[in-house]
């Protein structure tokens, strides 16, 4: 029985492989040797894991969240207090944001410590720096969405700070807010950036980042004389 089952699953695997080449992809990504590393090397995958959490919980949140000033707060209240496991979805997304920041920075510190940004991983590093900026942008745009006092006033301050930018400051602020003040136009903007524009950029960069990690392999821990 067991034998026949194995053969059957192997046959299905063959069938799919013939048409997709998944075995090659699988073995390229997973069946490979990497240098001896320590626990610090788990920071990158931990960041990726939290990113997955953010995507999943973020998608779930959009099922219930209404990006409109009159209803945003009520919908977040509903998610937090009434929806089954809403507290968990929103809690994971909320604290996941902090975890993203912490893990991204920790991951980068490891890379600097081991000189892992050097040949041949320069592009990996560059995409990493961009990802750091994106993580902060996510934090900023996501902060306004609950439309509570904390969210509103922090965004007031944040956009005022953006206005200080030389030459384009006031233009930048107007673009961010959709006017001179935070208004009914601002919330959809922040929402659109947070759930459409930024994820599209972030996921593309993460794709490049991961491809490069697999292609070039992870750095070995440098020895004292290296």
């Amino acid at each position, binding site marked *: 029985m067991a034998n026949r089952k194995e053969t059957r699953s192997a046959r299905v695997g063959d069938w799919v492989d013939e048409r997709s080449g998944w075995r090659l992809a699988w073995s390229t990504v997973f069946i490979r040797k990497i240098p001896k590393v320590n626990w610090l090397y788990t920071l990158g995958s931990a960041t990726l894991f939290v990113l997955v959490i953010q995507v999943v919980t973020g998608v779930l949140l959009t099922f219930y969240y209404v990006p409109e000033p009159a209803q945003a707060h009520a919908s977040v209240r509903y998610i937090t207090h009434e929806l089954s496991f809403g507290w968990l979805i929103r809690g994971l997304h909320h604290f996941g944001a902090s975890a993203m920041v912490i893990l991204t920075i920790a991951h980068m510190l490891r890379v600097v410590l081991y000189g892992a940004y050097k040949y041949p991983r320069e592009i990996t590093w560059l995409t990493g720096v961009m990802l750091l900026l994106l993580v902060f942008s996510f934090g900023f745009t996501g902060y306004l969405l609950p439309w509570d006092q904390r969210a509103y006033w*922090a965004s007031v301050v944040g956009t005022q700070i953006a206005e200080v930018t*030389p030459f384009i400051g006031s233009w930048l602020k107007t673009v961010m807010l959709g006017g001179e003040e935070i208004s009914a136009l601002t919330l959809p903007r922040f929402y659109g950036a947070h759930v459409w524009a930024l994820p599209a950029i972030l996921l593309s960069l993460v794709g490049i980042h991961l491809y490069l990690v697999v292609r070039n392999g992870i750095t070995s821990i440098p020895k004292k004389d290296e």
Partner: protein
Amino acid sequence: MNEQEKEEYLEEYAEEKKKGVDFFPDIIFKDTLVMLIVFLILFGLSAFEGAGLEEIADPTDDSYTPKPEWYFLFLFQLLKFFPGNIEVVGVIVLPTLAIAFLAALPWTDRSTRRHWSGRPLVTGVTAALFAGGVFLTVQALLEAPAPGGDAVTAQGDPVAELYSANCAGCHGTSVVANPGTDFYRVIAGGTHEGMPAFASDLTVEEIDSLVGFILVPRGNDTFAATCGDCHAVGDLVEIEPSELRDALALGADYSPHSGAGVPVWGEILSDDVQAQLLNFLSAPDGQRLWSQQCAACHGTSVAFEGGEAELRRVVIAGGSHLEMPSFREQLSDEEIAVLAGFVTGAEVGPEAAALWTASCFGCHGGRIPTATSHAAAVAAITTGGAHETMPVWGEVLTDEQLDSLVDYVVGVASGSGASGGKELYAQNCASCHGALGEGGPNPTRVGDIIAPISTAEYLETRDDRTLEAIIAQGQPNFGMSPFGSAFGGPLDNEQIDAIVAFMRAWEADPPVDLPPEVPDVPAATASGSEVFAQLCTQCHGVEGEGPIGPSLKDETWQASHTDEEIFDAINLGHSATPMIAWGEILSSAQIGELVSAIRDLGRPPPAGIPTFEANVLPIFERSCNLCHGTSGGWSGSTYSDTLLTGDPSPTIIPGDPLNSRLLQTLNGTHPQGVVMPPGSPLSDLDVETITNWIVGGAPEN
């Protein structure tokens, strides 16, 4: 790194890989373990801490202290080191440099060294960046919740600390404000631009100290060097300016100072420094000086009708200018005796205070005059006259204080500086509330009447903040649109303040007590010109000249607006102006008539007798000839056609309008047929023109 070095590295790396471990499952296992730990932490935080949700955002609640998310605190904190003009360094320059440093690492650090000890510069700078970020974040967390700042630190000086804790976080080391700003009021009440109200956080003395600190830059140091050894600033800011003068001038002879070894500061300090000290303790903030020094006698409403020079003279000179009536006729001897006891501090019953309130409070306010003896008090009350003299403020106040006080009074009385409150009121408020705040029909709600806003009762029960809020935010439930620029209206804060100041001037002598008898909203049957006379003239003037709204008789206005545009403007209104959507009140037919009535305004009736070519033909072409002339019957296309065609002809009998068929048809006085033109009769002006033309003998030219 040259080609050879690259090759070497790749070879070494291949070696390491060979000696290494399997990615799957060894590394995947470690990764999964860490992921699990991360998930458990996040789960625990969600379960036990929870993602908080505060009250719904309230853009009007500017007392809220903004708290950025913790990972932005470092930036927030960094700003405090770069106040004012150099803010851009903290906001843009430093973060950009940090990011540029990181992004450029692979190209700035081109050595083959990979161990951290071989790259001291890179690891050093990165560690410094990281440590700096952590330091700033921790510092910001420690300072929370008060938005304090480190821009100004003067350990041990309470006022400087007060400033540093409350103001420096946003304002930096010094506050720049327009001259004439009512600082006390701004600090206590905040501004619409986002400055929180400090009235609930700070005591009156603290706010007074802060105003002095802000307005008199070196006053704090002077205070510390002179009075600071014995006094706290907060204790002295409440003291009368005259007392302060005495204390400076008399030295040990000033009784509270006797035996304290206090020098005669008046002789030691130069006049400038003395003024500085006095200004510091009693800041040149006109509004505050008024409420402290003048309001007790003059009340809170500043109604002054006179020039600045006259006011200055009166204030400086002081003296007797209050005429108190004689109370001999109005009060019984017993009542006068009780009052005299009250003002001399004798033991009197509770009725004394009631009597004071009834008879004297109106003028004296809370300041009870003191009399030397019972007899003197009785004499003063019975005879009246000028016995309460105004202090000689010229000897008490410094020049700066006098300036600010006079500026304040003149400014408020005339409606605050450049933008007169009276004018603003007339432009924005009078159309609904009446020129004297008497109210009137509510144009937005049929049958509703706007209550007066200038009664004593209305003004006394609403403070300035309330009135400002009403004007700025409107009262949507009552059809009042927001007027504050923050809410989409046309007025900025200063203009709103000016209007409130203008309204306050009513308080001393309220112009109305009861809502006026007002005409009802126009009946559905009212004609266009009647509606215009009742409603539109309020803003656009009787002849459309427009004291408030645009001039409707203006040629360019008439030429640049089509009938449809005018119709729409009336029907839909203009947001954020008193021009509301009249379509909710008037029927389409009435608005149509209004449009032609407005068109009439642009065509004043011709002087003398109208002629066919100049005055009548245009009316025919506009309103008649589209149908007449092409479809037979009467034709108005030429002079002779007009006089000769029609059945029966002639339709016009020169000199006899009553029997002219044309006019009978236009006026609807002919028994047969409908009023012409069907559906949209000619405007009154057009009919009048044709009538005058016929009366005048129907001339061609």
